[in-house]
């Protein structure tokens, strides 16, 4: 009997990947590539360009001869710029905190099984739908002492009522806050409402069973659980605060005096109306640095490996 050689076990060859398959594997990247390229050019390319311009003496149109830090020197010697920064601080803090406070308050009210929710929700949301070019005039009227609230109160017989913030250099920035809060707080309300609706009802039941009164439930359970919403709201509001332009232009045009100047209006006016493009670019660079300081930690926390 002949011995049969055992068939050596051959590792089957890995099939060579065909071109089509490799294309298939790269497909996701191919799909993403255009958007990414667009961002690279139209965001980062333009940022670099702006940075470059800030080192030139560009005035009415870009010129490309470098002159060093001249524009930054001019920028930081402008009282307007300090005013803009100071105003941004006041506006930013108040705008963000008031929007959140009011938004959360309304959201909590709206969450109490309100019958007319379908009617009320759009009422709080609609300001977000209007541009300030549209509503600026109404607000200007409304806050104007001779025409609006003050006059109305006088007509109603409250003669001593005084509300002249719009024309008061010390108070004008607060009118910007009022209008800004009016516009954005509804949106923030929607975010909080969504957050509240997302909370598992069982948790609230559990807290009731644990003997917690409604106030304690909000304070100890619900509001702490809305932390992610707070974070998102702060980011949304911060970027709106930094970009606020229409709001100021429509309401005060930066005045009285320069009392309501903000970095965004500063930048626009220096770049386009004052023909100091280099200074405008320098202010844009400063703004971008400020934004980076806010956004990068957010991105970091957002994109960090999620704990499981």
């Amino acid at each position, binding site marked *: 009997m002949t011995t049969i050689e055992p068939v050596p076990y051959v590792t089957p060859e890995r099939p060579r990947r065909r071109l089509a398959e490799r294309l298939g594997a790269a497909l996701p990247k191919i799909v993403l590539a255009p958007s990414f390229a667009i961002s690279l050019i139209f965001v980062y390319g333009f940022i670099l360009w702006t940075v470059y311009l800030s080192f030139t003496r560009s*005035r*009415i*149109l*870009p010129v490309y001869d470098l002159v060093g830090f001249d524009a930054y020197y*001019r920028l930081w*010697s*402008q*009282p*307007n710029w300090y005013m803009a920064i100071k105003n941004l601080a006041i506006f930013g803090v108040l705008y963000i905190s008031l929007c959140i406070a009011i938004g959360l308050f309304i959201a909590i009210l709206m969450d109490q099984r309100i019958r007319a929710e379908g009617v009320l929700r759009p009422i709080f949301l609609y300001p977000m739908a209007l541009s300030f070019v549209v509503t600026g005039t109404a607000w*200007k009227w409304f806050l*104007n*002492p*001779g*025409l609006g609230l003050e006059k109305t109160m006088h007509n109603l017989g409250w003669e001593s009522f005084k509300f*002249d913030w*719009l*024309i008061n*250099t010390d108070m*004008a920035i607060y009118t910007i806050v009022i209008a800004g809060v009016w516009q954005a707080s509804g949106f923030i309300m929607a975010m909080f409402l969504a957050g509240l609706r997302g909370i598992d009802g069982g948790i609230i039941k559990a807290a009731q069973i644990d003997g917690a009164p409604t106030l304690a439930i909000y304070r100890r359970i619900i509001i702490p659980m809305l932390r992610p919403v707070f974070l998102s709201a702060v980011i949304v509001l911060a970027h709106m605060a930094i970009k606020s332009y229409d709001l100021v232009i429509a309401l*005060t*045009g*930066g*005045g*009285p*005096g*320069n*009392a309501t100047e903000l970095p965004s209006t500063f930048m626009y*006016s220096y770049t*386009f*109306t*004052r*023909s*100091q493009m280099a200074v405008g670019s320098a202010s844009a660079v400063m703004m971008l640095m400020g934004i980076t300081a806010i956004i990068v930690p957010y991105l970091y926390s957002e994109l960090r490996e999620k704990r499981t």
Partner: protein
Amino acid sequence: QESVEVLHWWTSGGEAAALNVLKENLQKQGIGWQDMPVAGGSGVQAMTALRARVTSGDPPTAVQMLGFDIKDWAEMGVVGNLNDLATEQGWDKVIPAALQEFSKFDGDWIAAPVNVHSTNWLWLNKAALDKAGGEPPKNMDELFALLDKFKEQGITPLAHGGQPWQDGTLWESVVLSVGGMDFYKKAVIEADAEALSSDTMRQVFDNMSKLREYFDPNFSGRDWNLSTALVIEGQAGAQQMGDWSKGEWLRAEKKPGEDFVCIRFPGTQGSVLFNSDQFVMFDVGEDKRNAQLKMAAAVEDPAFQIAFNTVKGSVPARTDVPDTEFDDCGKKGMKDLAEAAASGNLAGSLAHGHAQPSSVKEAVFDVVTQHLNGQITTDQALERLPQAVAAAQ
């Protein structure tokens, strides 16, 4: 079809109607009109749009522009050349030298001037003035006396709109009134640091503070035409404003001399601060060149000059246009302009971009506005003014 594209901010009824004259004129010549109106803030948005158009390599045919902006753009080498047309039609002779200063760059015609506005006017409600004695004021002191009388009448003495350019317009009239034309030229046109912090300038700011007392509390941010309306309706006595203000009066069917009185700002009689709207012709391709030239010619057509300026309240840019169609104020304006040009008392308006580039203009506005709104004291203003001007140059 050949056509012109015109960027302007004359969007409201009267101005647009006046422009229509131009449009129809061109249409008769077979030239189409692509309208590119960008309203707002005396051309702020329009200049932004223009930058975008020029940068994208596709400038409009003609752009409405003021004073130093024209120079800035010319410097960028993006404007066209109208020399042939200008020589043919003899523009050099009929357009005042002060305007040519802006219409020409390096000796070449680049823009077709439309009109001449003058800013140092005071508009008075005739009824209120009559009640206060009927005598128009001739200097600052008389002005204050008159304003006091208005106050007694229980009306707002001086209607003013608190926007930087309006503050600036008032300020330049006060500078001219307090310091006279020489001082104005030194301080404003030459931006002499000494003049800007001189005692005369202190008086200017003191007067500004004084004037501030006669405003109503709602002046902040108010559009000029609303202030005019206050005077028209007799709620206010007077308004310092350029001659475009007349349009409002006319539209309200008021008659100069009967319902209202136009005078030079007290203390500035015989001097004229002007600004001039011009159509700057941009460097467009040969295919659009013919239409562009036809438009330039049409702008300088006396018929258009009359039609437009009677509505706008301004006076024609050409000195050879008859004044028969104009009303009292218009006639006075034309006469003043001619005299001032002859006597050397004609100077560009700062607030309207005919004295300094916009960077300096805005820097002055910053100081004036902050001072007027009480954010800084007169001392601070005197200190800041030369600094701001220097920084902006």
